[in-house]
């Protein structure tokens, strides 16, 4: 076919080489990272969640600091012996907020594409859908891990500095510290992947948020430790796993105890299941 004389040289000779380069998964991860970081809402929402979680932890530590004088010496000793200074590095309230917030934040990259129709543009550019959702999972998990690490470490340093004002802060290399920091850090990516999976399966924003809150927050409230079957079901939940991994050394064991390795397994199973659901849910359906 001849080139029309008025055609601009650029369109006539495409700058892009026509031979298709070998497709690389890394390109998709890079593209998803561009998409995530180019949204202002990503930074605002993650920043707000980080402030809330860090604030909850620091607030608890400050409360302990402010009311320290009211405690009897025996009470103070019991506080330290029970391992509570480390628990204040990442409180239960902070963990609950983390689970809900990160579920929703993890769902957003996919929900945003469903809601706007941008997913059609994405899949037209890259018809290999599983690779796209896989790349999304990598980016969501990676970003949430960085968020979790930052929030956990800052919370630890802040709370222990406050508690040091009363001489009971602990150091980074204290007993049990790495386990608490790791469990709290990894809570973020596992929740984010859970949210992503729910978004892939449900597609609707409201349904995804409701399901997220139910899965990570309501179920742990409903399932108690006191009966065998509810305890068994409870031990499959993320928040329960986090509680097990961060339980202070001095606390009494629950009626149906379980191992630390079991709790780590719960993390791993949730993450693996979430990635599988994410990839499979949008593989074949019309978008």
């Amino acid at each position, binding site marked *: 076919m001849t*080139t029309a004389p008025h*055609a601009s040289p650029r*369109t006539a000779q495409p700058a892009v080489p026509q031979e298709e380069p070998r497709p690389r998964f890394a*390109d998709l991860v890079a593209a998803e990272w561009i998409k995530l970081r*180019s949204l202002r809402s990503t930074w605002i929402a993650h920043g707000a969640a980080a402030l809330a979680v860090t604030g909850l932890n620091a607030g608890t530590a400050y409360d302990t600091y402010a009311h320290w004088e009211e405690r009897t010496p025996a009470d103070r000793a019991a506080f330290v012996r029970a391992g509570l200074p480390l628990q204040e590095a990442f409180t239960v309230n902070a963990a609950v907020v983390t689970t809900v917030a990160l579920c929703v934040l993890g769902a957003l990259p996919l929900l945003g594409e469903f809601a*706007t129709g941008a997913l059609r543009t994405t*899949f037209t550019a890259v018809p290999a859908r599983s690779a796209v959702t896989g790349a999304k999972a990598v980016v969501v998990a990676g970003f949430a891990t960085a968020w979790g690490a930052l929030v956990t470490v800052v919370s630890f340093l802040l709370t222990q500095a406050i508690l040091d004002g009363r001489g009971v802060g602990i150091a980074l290399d204290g007993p049990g510290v790495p386990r608490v920091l790791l469990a709290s850090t990894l809570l973020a990516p596992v929740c984010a992947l859970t949210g992503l999976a729910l978004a892939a399966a449900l597609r609707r924003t409201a349904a995804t948020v409701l399901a997220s809150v139910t899965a990570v927050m309501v179920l742990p409230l409903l399932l108690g430790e006191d009966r065998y079957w509810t305890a068994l079901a409870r031990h499959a939940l993320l928040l329960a796993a986090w509680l097990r991994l961060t339980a202070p050394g001095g606390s009494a064991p629950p009626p149906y105890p379980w191992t630390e390795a079991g709790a780590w397994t719960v993390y791993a199973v949730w993450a693996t299941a979430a990635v599988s659901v994410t990839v499979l849910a949008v593989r074949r359906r019309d978008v």
Partner: protein
Amino acid sequence: MIEVANLTKRYGGVTAVKDLTFTVRPGRVTGFLGPNGAGKSTTLRVLLGLHRPSAGTATVDGRPFGGRPRGLRQVGALLDAQDVHGGRTARAHLTALARSNRIPPTRVEEVLEDAGLTGAARRRIAGFSLGMKQRLGIAAALLGGAPVLVFDEPLNGLDPEGVRWVRGLFRRLAAEGRTVLVSSHLMSEMEHTADDLVVVGRGELIAAESLAEFTARGCRQRVTVATPAADALLSLLTAEGASVRTEGGLLVATGMDAGRVGAIAQRHGIPLSRLQEERPSLEEAFMRLTADAVQYPTGDAR
């Protein structure tokens, strides 16, 4: 080259596209025409692997597009200008698309410039008018320099300058030997752009031919006659091979020119109070064809 063969797509009980077959050739601009709800967008979505066909196939260069690992170098597509995330800037949107297909960032700047969006590249898409979103969508379709280009209603919301740019662009792309498929519900948009037409109505094929053939077929001249002896003239003209119908007391004859009608009337001493020749516009022809398809999907209309 785009080939659609016996394509059927049902959504629940609704058949959006029924046994559709057509071919879109390279080096030509092909208009994909039909009224709203005719199944144009459904066909394009199936073609691009976004929806799965209920039956039949749709292929690009002999392969289903949905099976390709990457798409931008194979097909440049604009399905809906609104299919973008409003929170991103135009440049970020294009950069992410380019990156996923390993297209260099310099190409992003080129298509931004081609689409006249360089000045708006740092603005968030949410603030764009529909016309600017169309330009952005077309820029995205150009990223990969693909040999096949598909545009769904690309002229919606464009200003006159934009319309002229897009028409010139389609002509250029076709002149470079690319396959260009452009859907529209307005014949007037295609009249000066398309070489070939694929016309659908209610999910079924009405016509797949060149614009010239369509014009010749759809725009046959009509002769309108007013006479006190309408019945007599009607049978005379019919006997001479014209197809005639009455329309509000007037006779409307096709297949015969005004001179011939006048001569027949004179020969039989029939007085005429009005004799008029008219040629319907392409838009009218299109409206008539698609309206017929809706009313009588298989019948010989009129």
